[in-house]
């Protein structure tokens, strides 16, 4: 089931080095790129159907088309390498194993959108990764693939790595821009959208690492080749991260559209220790959970996930076995989002804290049925009433656990004292 498009060079020893990467085709299509018109590059990417791999799945070519023309201001490209959504661990493989694919992607995107300055925003925890990425950028500068004349063509591309410092919210695109500007990572109200007024108040495109790294293949082989993989509406391949209770957790490149359960069985070795499946989180911790029954019919693409009232998200699949205590899991999730709230909206800052306390109260055996109802009600009252969707990233999954596993919350409420003590 696995394919090697983005990960083609991942297993090649030393492919993070320019010399080896070039032997395997890196930077081979720059002459072709610069012979094309930027508008044609955008058209090809639109035709490929490439969708943003940061979680929202917005078509990349279409996003680029939102840039206003001839504003007289510079256009910035910000590459989102914050990779902080729990259960997401794909982009760092690109940074470490094939950074030149990312740099080539940056050159392609920059040319298409008329940008000369890229900032790669990388999460602060990626200490070793940031060094390796910088080493690759230095090599690309030295070889003339970055700088004033990219590969001898009359086009400048400068790339700067900007290191975050431990804030999940900086993955949100406007918080990311604030952070590059030296501020705390508080998302901006939209509109204006970054394409119009982004970094330093200039037109800005923000794309995920994997989205950008998908470009060299598309330019080299064309949109139709890319479309051989995946489905009509979800074309291409994706780096999936499978974690939790499976025998073979790991990062796997797969075409979109495969049946979820088959992937879990054949690729990830099935539920570990011969246990039964309790649920699957399909695309990072913020996506609503699927029951084993729902998991039977879902396929790994944007449309099927939406039909199952969840989201494709970041491709971070988490498997939960029968032993998982859903209430404790929900507590772990709320903890995360509450801790990462930037604090500027009351429903998020206070509401998530409130949800955390109620869940703890239920876990402590002191909850009532109306607490379970209140938790559910809070989800509806917090969502979409805030500046960014971090709060919804918490309430959407929590609502799904409450709706699909309500009996587990109720069990805590109705349990006699001895069984509660045991559950702790």
């Amino acid at each position, binding site marked *: 089931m696995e394919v090697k498009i983005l990960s083609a060079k991942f297993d090649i020893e030393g492919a993070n080095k320019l010399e080896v990467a070039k032997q395997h085709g890196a930077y081979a299509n720059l002459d072709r790129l610069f012979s094309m018109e930027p508008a044609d590059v955008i058209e090809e990417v639109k035709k490929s159907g490439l969708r943003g791999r940061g979680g929202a799945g917005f078509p990349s070519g279409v996003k680029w088309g939102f840039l206003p023309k001839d504003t007289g201001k510079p256009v910035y490209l910000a590459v989102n390498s914050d*990779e*902080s*959504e*729990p*259960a*997401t*661990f794909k*982009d*760092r493989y690109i940074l470490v194993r094939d950074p030149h694919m990312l740099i080539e992607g940056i050159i392609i995107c920059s040319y298409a959108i008329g940008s000369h300055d890229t900032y790669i925003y990388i*999460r*602060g*925890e*990626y*200490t*070793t990764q940031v060094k390796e990425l910088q080493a690759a950028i230095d090599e690309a500068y030295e070889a003339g693939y970055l700088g004033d004349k990219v590969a001898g063509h009359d086009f400048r591309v*400068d790339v*700067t790595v*900007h*290191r*975050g*410092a*431990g*804030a*999940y919210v900086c993955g949100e695109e406007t918080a990311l821009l604030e*952070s*590059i*500007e*030296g*501020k*705390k*990572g508080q998302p901006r109200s939209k509109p204006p959208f970054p394409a119009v007024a982004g970094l*330093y108040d200039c037109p800005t495109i923000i794309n995920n690492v994997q989205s950008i790294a998908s470009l060299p293949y598309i330019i080299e082989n064309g949109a139709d080749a890319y479309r051989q993989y995946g489905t009509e509406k979800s074309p291409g391949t994706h780096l999936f*991260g*499978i*974690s*939790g*209770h499976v025998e073979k*957790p*790991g*990062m796997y490149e797969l075409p979109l559209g495969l049946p979820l359960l088959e992937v879990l069985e054949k690729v990830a070795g099935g539920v570990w220790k011969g246990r039964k499946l309790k649920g699957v*989180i399909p695309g990072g*911790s913020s996506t609503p959970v699927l029951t084993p029954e729902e998991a039977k019919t879902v396929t790994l693409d944007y449309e099927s996930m939406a039909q199952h009232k969840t989201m494709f998200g970041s491709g*971070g699949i*988490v498997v*939960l076995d029968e032993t*998982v205590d859903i209430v404790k*899991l929900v507590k*772990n*999730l709320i*903890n*995360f989002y509450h*801790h*990462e*709230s*930037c*604090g500027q909206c009351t429903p998020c*800052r206070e509401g998530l804290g409130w949800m955390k306390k109620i869940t703890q109260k239920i876990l402590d055996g002191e909850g009532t049925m109306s607490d379970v109802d209140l938790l559910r009600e809070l989800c509806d009252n917090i969502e979409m009433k805030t500046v960014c969707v971090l709060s919804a990233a918490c309430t959407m999954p929590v609502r799904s656990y409450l709706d699909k596993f309500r009996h587990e919350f109720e069990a805590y409420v109705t349990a006699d004292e001895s069984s509660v003590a045991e559950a702790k």
Partner: protein
Amino acid sequence: MSDRSQLISTGEPFQFDKERDAEFERLVKRYPTRESMILPALWLTQEQEGWISQEAIAYIADRIGTFASKVYEAATFYTMYNLHPMGKHHICVCRTLSCWLRGKQEIIDYMRDELGLTPGKKTEDGKFSLEEVECLGHCGTAPVVQVDGEFHENMDVEKFKSLLATLK
């Protein structure tokens, strides 16, 4: 959010060493505004000293030409900036979803029972400090521990013990 509002004064003036000074000058040219240097300058400070003092905040503000409050704002917002000295070895254990599912708690319990070390604290000899952190982006090899910036994957208590033994 947690309370990170306290700054500690060393009573000594702070400045970048030669290497960091050069790095600052290299980086400042990469941005159209000097304020963008706030995060990089905080990193340079932490690399040099291990933590960020009140004097360092004042120095960075001065060096960039901005208000100390702006530097303070960033230093207190971003959780990776240490606002007090850490242990000689700083241990971060991921507590989020996938690591939680695959037994991160056993490692935390081990440190509490064997070293008397709990999250947010240092051992008495100052050798280890411990922090529970959120998802470190290595969920496929959970549970994950980061020591002095180095990742250690597929951890369990036995492996963790041997790891501790290698830390001088």
